[in-house]
């Protein structure tokens, strides 16, 4: 023992030094013990945040769930999966081609339209906001109350919008209320009926409409530069009108694909639903805040026009042109992604308002684009149209249809809509590429449609359609009917309205859903898509119709999307839509 002690004494310096070193290093243990750079929900909804900075950021996260429809689906417009257009890149993995050729099932619905999880994510975030915003002591006021109540109404508006997006795709879906589920909760939630979902969306719109902002924005209540394009009372009423219009439509009202299934629609027909839809649209019109802007093209370029009810701002760029512009211009590249069909081109009337099939319309098959409804040239670039300081060549072998391996139009037409006014420039420049979700023309058309269905082709219907056609640039005609036939039957008027919607709202994600809710998809989508092959011989152009894609629609199952396969497998209470 003594020896040991002695040895230790001899080495004590070393040992003490070593022990000291170890102690110093091991003692430094009060280091960051938790992920200090990560934030949790307490930081978002902070009890001390009197400006609500992070809560607002969270609200903007909910806004971000809204979709920007420009080349959204794959790299195409959703309407390229309708009878209005096809994708120039048609191929098996191309999303719109998958959709328009019925090449999907519950397992393989392409991601960009398989939005079940996306919108439930948005709904969850909205619920989280609605449940937690109370704790944030926001001082700023709107209409005498803390502005957080305005934010809360915005979150509820967005939530209602997400439910509508689900409803039109799937029919009735599970309504979550304000619940925010955790992994420990019972997540096997059944679907609510279609009726419940409509009622819920409508009741939410009604509940929030008066606590939202009101347009036009004026200080001190709201600041145009900060608040433009937030949802307003008009937005809420327009969403309500749209939901009611869908709910009154044949697919859900009387034409339920599974007549006794309350998930896929109403189990009865009730004409009062059309009346309710008309009344809801009238409420928007009666706000007297919104109007049609004189220039159709500017609706999509001018961010602050009175036609916009709700939109998602896009960037300031020329992405629409680079994606969809005609090929063949090296200084202004375009990928020609969208090939509008001959069917869409044919649905534009003549400038006198008469359909091209009307013998009185003076339609010339050998000069098919002359004297047409000006909206044709606003929506579509055709052979001979003025664009980029030149006359577009989509004849075979022409500059914009060179027939190389390069992606180019398949139909002989390019998209024009949403683009800047580049008719007389050599290059593209940036402009706003906003996505209009609700616009006044749509409300007018909804009003006309619902009124015609509930009350017949009244004068009101004629004048409403007339406003749209007047703004489009159609001749009023001696009778002020803008080419509409006088004394139409309800059915004739229905056809006129359906055509008007098609051409007015082309590529705005309207047609794709309209042919479903009208239950005409099985007719129009089971015909071949056609385009034009223009052969230039000398200075003569020969226009030959060509088939460009065989689209397919399997009725009735395709009127609604399949609930994602996994959802049904995972949740024993989840009912699949019929046929899937």
């Amino acid at each position, binding site marked *: 023992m003594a020896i040991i002690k002695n*040895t230790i004494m001899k080495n004590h310096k070393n040992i003490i030094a070593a022990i000291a070193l170890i102690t110093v290093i091991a003692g430094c243990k009060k280091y960051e013990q938790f992920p200090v750079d990560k934030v949790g929900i307490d930081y978002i909804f902070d009890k001390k945040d009197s400006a609500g900075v992070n809560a607002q950021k969270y609200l*903007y996260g909910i806004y971000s769930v809204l979709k920007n429809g420009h080349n959204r689906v794959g790299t195409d417009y959703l309407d390229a999966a309708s009878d209005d257009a096809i994708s120039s890149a048609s191929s098996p993995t191309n999303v719109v081609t998958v959709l328009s*050729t019925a090449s999907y099932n519950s397992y393989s619905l392409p991601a960009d339209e398989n939005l079940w999880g996306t919108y439930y994510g948005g709904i969850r*975030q909205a619920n989280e906001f609605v449940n937690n915003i109370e704790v944030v002591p926001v001082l700023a006021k709107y209409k005498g109350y803390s502005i957080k109540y305005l934010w809360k109404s915005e979150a509820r508006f967005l939530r209602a919008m997400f439910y509508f997006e689900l409803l039109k795709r799937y029919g009735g879906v599970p309504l979550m209320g304000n619940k925010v589920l955790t992994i420990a909760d019972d*997540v096997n939630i059944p679907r609510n009926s279609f009726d419940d979902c409509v009622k819920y969306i409508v009741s939410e719109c009604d509940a929030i409409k008066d606590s939202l902002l009101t347009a036009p924005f004026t200080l001190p209540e709201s600041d145009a530069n900060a608040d433009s*394009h*937030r949802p307003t009372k008009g937005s809420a009423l327009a969403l309500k009108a749209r939901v009611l219009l869908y709910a009154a439509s044949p697919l859900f009202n009387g034409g339920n694909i599974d007549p006794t299934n309350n998930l896929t629609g109403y189990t009865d027909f009730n004409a009062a639903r059309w009346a309710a839809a008309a009344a809801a649209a009238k409420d928007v019109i009666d706000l007297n805040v919104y109007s049609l802007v004189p220039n159709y093209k500017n609706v999509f370029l001018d961010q602050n026009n009175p036609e916009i009810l709700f939109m998602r701002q896009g960037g300031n760029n020329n992405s629409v042109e680079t994606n969809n512009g005609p090929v063949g211009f090296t200084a202004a590249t375009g990928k020609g992604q969208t090939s509008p069909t001959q069917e869409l081109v044919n649905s534009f009337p003549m400038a006198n308002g008469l359909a091209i099939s009307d013998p009185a319309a003076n339609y010339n098959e050998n000069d098919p684009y002359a004297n047409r409804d000006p909206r044709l040239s606003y929506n579509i670039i055709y052979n001979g149209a003025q664009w980029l300081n030149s006359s577009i060549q989509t004849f075979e072998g022409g500059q914009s249809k060179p027939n190389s391996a390069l992606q180019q139009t398949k139909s002989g037409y390019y998209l024009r809509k949403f683009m800047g006014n580049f008719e007389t420039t050599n290059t593209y420049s940036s402009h706003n590429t906003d996505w209009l979700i609700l616009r006044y023309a749509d409300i007018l058309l909804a009003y006309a449609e619902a009124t015609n269905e509930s009350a017949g082709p009244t004068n009101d219907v004629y004048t409403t359609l007339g406003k749209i056609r007047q703004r489009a640039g159609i001749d009023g005609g001696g009778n002020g009917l803008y080419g509409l036939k006088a004394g139409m039957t309800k059915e004739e008027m229905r056809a006129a309205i359906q055509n008007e919607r098609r051409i007015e709202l082309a590529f705005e994600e309207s047609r794709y859903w309209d042919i479903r809710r009208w239950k005409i998809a099985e007719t129009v989508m089971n015909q071949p898509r056609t385009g034009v092959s223009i052969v230039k011989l000398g200075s003569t152009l020969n226009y030959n119709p060509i088939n460009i894609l065989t689209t397919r629609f399997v009725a009735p199952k395709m009127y609604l999307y399949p609930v994602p396969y996994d959802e049904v497998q995972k949740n024993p209470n989840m009912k699949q839509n019929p046929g899937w």
Partner: protein
Amino acid sequence: MRKIILFFQIIITLLPVALYAQNRAVTGKVRDISGVLPGVSVVEKGVPTNGVTTDVNGRFSLTLKGSTNKLVVRFIGFATQEVTVTDDKPLDVILQTSTNGLDEVSVIAYGTKKRITNTGAVSSISASDIRTVPTANVQNALTGKLPGFFSQQGSGQPGKDASDFYIRGVSSLNPAGNQPLIIVDDIEYSYDQLQQINVNEIENISILKDASTTAVYGIKGANGVLVVTTRRGKGGAPKVNVRVEAGTQQPTKTPKFLNSYDAAVLINEAQMNDGIQQSFTQQDLDAFKNGNDPYGHPDVNWYDKIFKKQSYQTNANLDISGGTNALKYFVSGGALNQNGLVKDFADPQSLVNTNYYFKRYNFRSNLDLKANKTLDLRLDITTRFSDLNQPYNQNAVGEVYNFTKTTPFTAPYLNPNGTYSYAYSNFNPEHLPTLNARLATGGYQRSRRTDFNFLFGATQKLDALTDGLSVTGRIAYSSIEQFTKQIFNGGIPAYHYDPVTNSYALRPGATYVYSTYALTGNTDLNSNNYNLQVYANYDRTFKNAHHFSGLLLFNQTANTAYAAPLLAGSLVGVPQKFRGVSGKLGYDYKQKYLLDFNVAYNGTDRFAADHRFGIFPAVSIGYNLVKEEFFSEALPMFSLFKIRGSYGLVGSDAAPGNRYVYNQVYNQGSPYSFGQTPNPYNSITEGSLGNANVVWERSKKLDIGLDMNLFNDKLSLTVDYFHDIRYNQLITPGSVPLVLGVDLPAVNIGKTRNQGFDGQISYHGKAGNLQFNTGLVFSYAKNKILFRDEATPAYPWLAQTGYPIGQQYGYHSLGFYTAQDVTAINTYMAGNGNSNVGNKNIAVPDNGIPIQPGDLKYQDLNGDGIINVFDKRAIGNPNLPNTILGLSLQAIYKGFSVSVLLQGSFNYSFAVVGTGIEPFQSQFQPIHQERWTPNNSVNAAFPRLGLNPTSVNSPTAYFSDFWLVNAYYVRLKTIDIGYQLPNKLLPFKINNARLYLSAYNLFTFDNYKKYQQDPEISTNTAGDAYINQRVVNIGIQLGL
């Protein structure tokens, strides 16, 4: 430490030399292929007491006393050799490395184990075996050398050519969860730190494979451990080693592309198949064939124009070691320079080097200081600097494959007036300036990296307390910084020359003059790591029978990687913390019965406070039958016959995604804009839910092994069987409905099994002056997913459970549609509403593209007449081989030595997609000439040509076993032929000189013709990686 004790023991026993017999004096020198060996024991055969050890220059002198005329030369790490003394000339003894002797040690966690008493699964090699392999990365030289080591080298780009490697294959579904732990001098290194190490600094490399050897690493041990020890000074006068080598690099495969004529013919055929107008007229084809219009109808082999036949690399190393009793040192420096394969496009406009290259400079100083009798200090300092250069924004290799960027007929190499041209063809819609133009003037991207490592340690012997006890403390620090700068030039004037009008047209959008270079840069890597270890070691033998050893370790690490954080823009990092206590307890009775117990109690801050720490125990036993009399009498040829087994639990703390899985975090989302003038507002979105109960993955590992040595250790065999169950794997559950509305966290639910065997057989012998050594290393590991939380698949063949990790899924090819098939389909569809649904005989894809003869036909698994995702099934094997063999042969004859490693990988699959193979995406390759045509319908090796990039014939759209190659390869992986100059030729002061020729990837035999790619390519890629290199190298090594 035990080496030194042993060494003294030998000396002590040898000191009283018996004085009898012939008294013949022998002198000589002992070397291995890398230099002289001090401290080697040289003993006269039959007179065990007559022996000496070699001095610092490897020299010895001895007076023979017996009558055998033979010396036994024995040294740890080398095969024992008997040398016959024939005449009076000095002997020149060259030893072969070996890790199979009874007393050979393997480096394991915090210590070493002898082969005779080892109970765990360890394989090791001496780094001198791989030092002359001409590769920059140590892990590239280990495949086929170490049983249980699996690797794949996905790229040959200088500086990015390190192999991915796994120990005993993979067993985690979590992609981050399969990387082995890397330990260098007991300090954890990252993957990319390992590849920076110069092999010249390494002494020994071991891999630890079973639970008993990895349990002390506890939470980090489940993927096996690669242990590297660096060289240290052995004392004596300064010993200088210089190694200088230079070599050439060539791709292992040089791709061939069709010329303009052949490509144009195929393009016309594809256009005819698709019913569109053909791009090339007969005049065009004639012009391509004649080559008499080089500007109007160019025919450029871009591969030959862009790439050199070979590029050079050099490697120089210098190390000095030596010292006194009080201070021993090893100091080394190295410089490596690898050039790239791209030609040097010197352009007067820009004198920047845009080629690929890699330069690395290593420096190491390892010092051992004896402060006093009982206190040893060590100080290791290493730094590494490297420069990695590559062309800015162009993958030169990928581009020569890419049909849409350049084609043989699109542009001449240069215009007649010397200006650059651009891709003029409509097949090249970007109309890019030619690749040589962009490489010459486009600029470069250069990453400059600095690694720094520091280790300070102190060992205090505490024999005063009790014999055999010591305490060691260590502090280690390492840091990495990498700065990348880009210098680039957007505007390149390029012209299209029209020979008919003799005119030049500027590329649309281009400028007439070069724009000035722009320069950007950023720090892309900045991390540091602190490590503290304190451990007590105990090693003592009682009564010459009971041997105890023990270790008690405290270990703490903080690792900070600077990365973009959540809600801020600058680079910051929060350190990751790791802390644990580990212990080892070993006992053996006369080396006969062996028992080892290992345990770790450790944790990381990745997990919630109450789930941080876990216990990882392992036990192993061994039974040395050869120590039993009945055995040694019955089978005297055995010098070792040991059975051993281990079982234990180890963990892995790698978690996918969010580092703190237990915590729900909120992430910065995309901004959303309001306002009359767009006003972006930042947003926050909810991240995945937290999993408060998250813990490490666990692995139950069983290993049963057999070690045998026969015929005086000449033949040795080690074989291990292993069976691992990896459970509690962190994967994202697939069975929770999306109505939850938020992503789920990783949950401890996955389970896999991994089993197999590995081992090696080696034999070394001598025939006259010829020494030879041959060994076979084999590794087999097969895993199977036992549970992954997937929703019930629509059809059983879509399930992933039950298949290996990384199983590939796709369609099963039935060959090509025939004209009869197409007729049958059309008939059926005509009678069935233009739909093929329900056609039991022939199915068609549901893509709306009509089938033509020569299209690929796939099996309709669910029999609905339609080919869609429901018809995919498991095809082929995973991309990682499950069997690896290495056959090494080594022979030494006098000063000549040859060593060869043949390495083979088996049972894996890969496919190339996109620019690597698909027509109109890839340049036309010889395989495309073997396409299906009506006249070549039987022997077609490729489907009919068409322009549609996503038809049924595309491996991108329809991944199938037509494209997937079930591959194997056998490689002459490394070869080393050397000549050691005889002593008498060595000039003054040089004690060793060796000339050698070495090679890496010299020859490859594989089993596929479809792809012009190296067999180690990653599956489902475009095949545009820098092709692996074959290196042939000459060098000289000098010892002073």
